[in-house]
């Protein structure tokens, strides 16, 4: 955004505020967790999507549902990055910060870009609130704010109260509307359409029309305030992005995951069964799927994570496409049952929406530190395929792909997403149902020559035989099986043979993978390697470096186990390899062990995604070790 603007409070008497065109904007709404910032952000996102921009969002909220009001831990934020070109991340730093109270200002101001727009609800800066935020004196009196930022003190609470004078609402109900004032003001500033939001509010409060109309009124008040207060020197225009043609909607990663699972079951023509125990940030997948009863979707809220996966194993045995969803601590609990699923060789999808750990860790923050757990974290030789989604919308395809592999190879599959993907959102080109890759479910029905563990010579998959099939009655279980008959066997040679064939089956999945795509030249000075939710930041960092003439490429791995067969060659064609991950170097460890390459690590473990600039800077240090850059 234009940082050389004039002093904000310059007057435009009698003139319409000019509309300035900008390419890309990042706005962060922040306030107390009771201030409705997530809703404000979601509504702004909706209208931005309708305005046709490419966008990415990142909600950031505290672990406590309602930390003490006004305190620093109680601050909740929602960031949206939108643009007239294609973008991949929710933005490194906000250009616009809307702070609803002192605590929000204190925790978020350091992120605001120099020259950015700062809007505060000045009514919230009472002595009590200042004290709760740990401010010795009122920061709004600090003259330097107006020098550093385009700074607007707006009496949001007071204006909201005035707009609702005589509405008959209680003062508490009135206070709850103030986020709508901020939303209206932002709608004005960025010329967003408001109809969808207003219609949505009327729908949501259909039974309380008084509340609905109050909210609508306050949105208009905020909008009109922008128009008439003559306080804002600019309003902005972000032209629609040139996205590939088609019909779009906005999805969060968790929504896309749920849709991908439902789509796989519909395409396969069988029931989807989800066994799950609530855990942040994975619960939304359970919530989404629990609405889809008329799609042959069964959701079972189990008594714990073990029952979540246990019930899914039972459903898979019965012939359903079965899935269990969780986050790190729940993954740990499911471990033993995953081993059972590996022994039973039943199709099953296990989704880990990763969060900060270990233990309870940072439950509402993102991290990528469950990779080694996913690939190796079971007793004995227990291989299973692991794949990862790279963006909120990509969760759809990744979930779909997880089922395709599970069914084709008769194996449990782990899909890794993370809190950033799960809660973040972006526009999604709605796929054509006809064009989704088919998922072929074939239950064995023929008793002729039946052996429960006889394998398909190509995939090494055993047949899927479901109870209810006459003549195929047999027993399966966690004890080692005879290679041929599938009966219990304690034979030492047979055990080694079975361990090897299970490993071979999973390794063989690599043969069916399409060639790995590299963003940039196939060889060069530096290959930035990543997996999962860091895709956007790494991609854009590589793009920026390439634009400056650097020989930098980006490799993003969807298939983490088995690794695609061409990865070793790709790594060796670069002078330097940098593996960037939100952990202490887990993929780097796997790549070094697998390919004996001197891969360096770039790590961040702060519960936050990478910023593009962080990646760019680290790459520059590698490319110009002597600090030759300006």
């Amino acid at each position, binding site marked *: 955004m234009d940082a050389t603007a004039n002093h904000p409070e310059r007057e435009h008497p009698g003139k319409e505020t000019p509309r300035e065109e900008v390419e890309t904007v990042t706005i962060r709404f922040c306030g107390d967790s009771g201030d409705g910032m997530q809703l404000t952000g979601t509504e702004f996102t909706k209208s931005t999507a309708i305005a046709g921009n490419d966008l990415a969002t990142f909600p950031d909220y505290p672990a406590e549902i309602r930390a003490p009001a006004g305190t620093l831990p109680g601050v909740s934020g929602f960031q949206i990055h939108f643009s007239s070109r294609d973008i991949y991340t929710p933005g490194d730093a906000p250009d616009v910060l809307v702070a609803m109270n002192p605590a929000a200002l204190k925790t978020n101001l350091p992120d605001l870009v120099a020259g950015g727009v700062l809007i505060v609800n000045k009514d919230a800066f009472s002595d009590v609130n200042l004290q709760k935020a740990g401010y010795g004196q009122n920061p709004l009196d600090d003259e330097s704010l107006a020098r550093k930022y385009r700074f607007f003190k707006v009496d949001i609470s007071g204006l909201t109260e005035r707009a609702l004078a005589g509405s008959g609402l209680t003062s508490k109900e009135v206070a709850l509307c103030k986020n709508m004032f901020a939303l209206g003001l932002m709608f004005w500033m960025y010329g967003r359409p408001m109809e969808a939001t207003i219609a949505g509010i009327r729908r949501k409060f259909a039974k309380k029309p008084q509340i609905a109309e109050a909210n609508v009124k306050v949105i208009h008040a905020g909008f009109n305030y922008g128009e008439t207060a003559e306080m804002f020197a600019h309003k902005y225009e972000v032209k629609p992005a040139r996205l590939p043609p088609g019909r*779009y909607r906005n999805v969060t990663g968790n929504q896309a995951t749920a849709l991908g699972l439902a789509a796989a079951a519909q395409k396969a023509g069988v029931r989807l069964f989800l066994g799950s125990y609530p855990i942040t940030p994975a619960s939304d997948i359970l919530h989404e799927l629990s609405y889809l009863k*008329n799609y042959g979707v069964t959701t079972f809220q189990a008594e714990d994570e073990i029952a979540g996966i246990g*019930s899914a194993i039972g459903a*898979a045995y019965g012939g359903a496409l079965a899935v269990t969803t969780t986050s790190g601590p729940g993954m740990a609990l499911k471990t033993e049952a995953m081993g059972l699923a590996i022994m039973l060789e039943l199709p099953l999808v296990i989704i880990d929406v990763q969060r900060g750990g270990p233990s309870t860790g940072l439950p509402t923050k993102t991290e990528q530190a469950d990779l080694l757990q996913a690939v190796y974290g079971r007793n004995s030789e227990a291989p299973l395929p692991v794949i990862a989604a790279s963006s909120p919308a990509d969760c759809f395809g990744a979930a779909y792909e997880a089922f395709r592999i599970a069914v084709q190879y008769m194996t449990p599959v782990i899909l890794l997403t993370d809190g950033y993907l799960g809660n973040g959102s972006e526009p999604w080109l709605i796929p054509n149902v006809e064009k989704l890759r088919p998922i072929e479910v074939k239950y064995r029905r023929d008793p002729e020559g039946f052996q429960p563990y006889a394998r398909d010579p190509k995939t090494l998959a055993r047949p899927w035989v479901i109870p*209810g099939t006459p003549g195929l009655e047999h027993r399966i279980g*966690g004890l080692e099986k005879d290679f041929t008959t599938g009966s219990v066997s304690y034979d030492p040679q047979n055990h080694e043979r079975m361990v090897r064939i299970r490993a071979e089956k999973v390794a063989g999945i690599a043969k069916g993978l399409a060639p790995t795509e590299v963003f940039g030249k196939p060889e060069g000075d530096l290959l930035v390697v990543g997996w999962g939710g860091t895709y956007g930041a790494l991609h854009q960092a590589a793009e920026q470096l390439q634009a400056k003439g650097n020989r930098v490429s980006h490799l993003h791995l969807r298939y983490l186990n088995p690794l695609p067969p061409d990865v070793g060659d790709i790594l060796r064609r670069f002078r330097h390899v940098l593996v960037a991950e939100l952990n202490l170097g887990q993929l780097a460890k796997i790549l070094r062990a697998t390919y004996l390459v001197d891969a360096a690590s770039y790590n961040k473990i702060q519960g936050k995604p990478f910023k593009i600039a962080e990646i760019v800077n680290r790459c520059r240090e590698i490319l110009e070790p002597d600090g030759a850059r300006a």
Partner: protein
Amino acid sequence: MSANPLPVTPPLTKKDFQSDQDVRWCPGCGDYVILAQVQRVLPELGIPRENIVVISGIGCSSRFPYYMNTYGMHSIHGRAPAIATGLKVARPELSVWVATGDGDGLSIGGNHTIHVLRRNVDMKILLFNNRIYGLTKGQYSPTSQVGMKSKSSPYGSLDAPFDPLRLALGAGGTFVARAVDAEPAHLTEVLRRAAHHKGTAFIEIYQNCVVFNDGAFDYMTEKAAREETRLVLTHGKPLVFGKAKDKGIRLNPKLEPEVFQIGREGDLSQCLVHDETSETLAWILAHLQPPKFPTPVGVFRAVSAPTYDAGVHEQEEEVRGKKGAGDLAKLLGSGETWTVS
């Protein structure tokens, strides 16, 4: 998914339910009796063999599915009720049986046991209670008596045991029963009743582990003693026991059960009459413990209640009725959408 059309075949026999695997329990183990009685009852039910599934956890008792010529799964320690729940919900037409032990179902898997009972998922749970961990060679279990000397309690166990039936009743069990391996005919009767119950049928079966806890139930199984030490429950019949049928159970003025001598201390009309539908009575019966009281065997409680699995499918139908069958293209394109041309 629908069931396969039932083939027209001659009635099944006990033999049809015996698998080709050698049974590997210790000679004399009570598990043999239980296996034989289940194999005897199943053919009577008229359920095609392929529609019967036995799921177990881990333990001596959990080897059960291997010996049954039905579908079966020997799963992991304690988790059979969870796996069985997923199967039953996905395939309500199947007849689902769980074989578990006092360690499997009450210790490591206690959580799943109470929740399956609470939900009333339609399955039969056979809990083989030998008051010991058999497979791991003789540690005390959650049903072992205080003071029991075992491999892991050489000076006597300090753990207070709990009673599986009180647990099952507390969790809302709709069919709660007890039987003993030493009385196969009675066991068969209870199994038959359980097989016809819609909902979770929970049967605790006292089972003698000849190796690690031999004789644990002798006090109520030995022919000479049992008329005095166990009480056979029959719906609608007074709670009478004793060789001469001369002892009854009644409530005293403090509403506590007591044994009384029929004739000498009161007449038969004071005797409690068994009613399988009375939760209060089931609760009282579950509190009758030796040596003061005889141990009741039979069906403590049998009531009909909606099952979870049926509920799942009814709700699905209801939603389908309201919203119509799901259309994938519509689902993917739901919410606010916009078109880029």
